[in-house]
């Protein structure tokens, strides 16, 4: 058996594409604002045993979010369905069945009722619908994770807008255009955490 999972860790199973950049940052900001810590497969170094390492990452996280909002084929001539997210959801479901006290997973979607068509085996699982907006992601994170204090979605959105505004500066510094790169992810996480922590201190001083 693997060691017990980190009770704050959330594995993010999301599409790594350009249209998803804003929602990706919303997930990072939102999870930190709820006192949780996001994890991505891009944290894992490359190598032949990538799948094993993804399983290890899932097992090390108490929660996971599987965003199935990109099920459509792209318009490229060699368009292919994107199986990585359903594959990782399948592995996670198996892990939860084997160790129900160790893991809880959530499905996020952009459109209501589409999951019934795209993955009918999941009927009975009600996804969280974010409508492909950062505000929707933040709202739905607050709906599935209940913190010990009420989080305000407008406040979360304000932090999101600020962090999203830093994205280009961080990308330039890292010499990449890919915000899913590990080093960019780490800096987006650090700023999100830093702001969250500073706001908590400010609020506790007011009381």
């Amino acid at each position, binding site marked *: 058996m693997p060691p017990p999972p980190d009770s*704050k860790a959330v594995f993010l199973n999301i599409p790594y594409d350009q249209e998803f950049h804003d929602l990706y940052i919303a997930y990072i900001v939102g999870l930190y604002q709820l006192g949780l810590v996001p994890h991505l497969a891009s944290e894992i170094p490359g190598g032949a045993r990538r799948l094993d390492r993804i399983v290890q990452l899932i097992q090390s996280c108490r929660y996971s979010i599987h965003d199935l909002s990109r099920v459509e084929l792209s318009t490229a001539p060699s368009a292919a369905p994107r199986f990585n997210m359903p594959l990782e959801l399948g592995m996670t479901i198996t892990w939860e069945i084997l160790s129900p006290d160790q893991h809880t997973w959530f499905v996020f979607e952009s459109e209501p009722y589409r999951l019934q068509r795209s993955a009918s085996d999941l009927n009975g699982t009600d996804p969280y619908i974010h409508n492909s907006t950062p505000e929707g992601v933040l709202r739905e994170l607050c709906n599935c994770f209940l913190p010990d204090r009420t989080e305000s979605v407008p406040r979360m959105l304000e932090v999101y807008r600020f962090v999203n505004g830093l994205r280009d500066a961080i990308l330039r510094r890292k010499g990449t255009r890919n915000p899913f790169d590990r080093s960019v992810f780490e800096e987006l996480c650090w700023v999100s955490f830093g702001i969250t922590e500073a706001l908590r201190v400010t609020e506790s001083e007011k009381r």
Partner: protein
Amino acid sequence: MRKQVQITAPWPTREEVATHLRISKAREKELQVFVDEFLARFSKREEQPANSEKRRKSASAA
């Protein structure tokens, strides 16, 4: 019925997050500038309604 979970874990500490993210101390300092910038904007905006309330009260008292 959608699943919901109550978060019971303590808030992550700076040390925990720093260890996970492997950010260097030098870069931590650089990124702190962004955090300070957000806080400055945030506190400035928070002060505005408080100041206008004070002005309203003093005007009505006069």
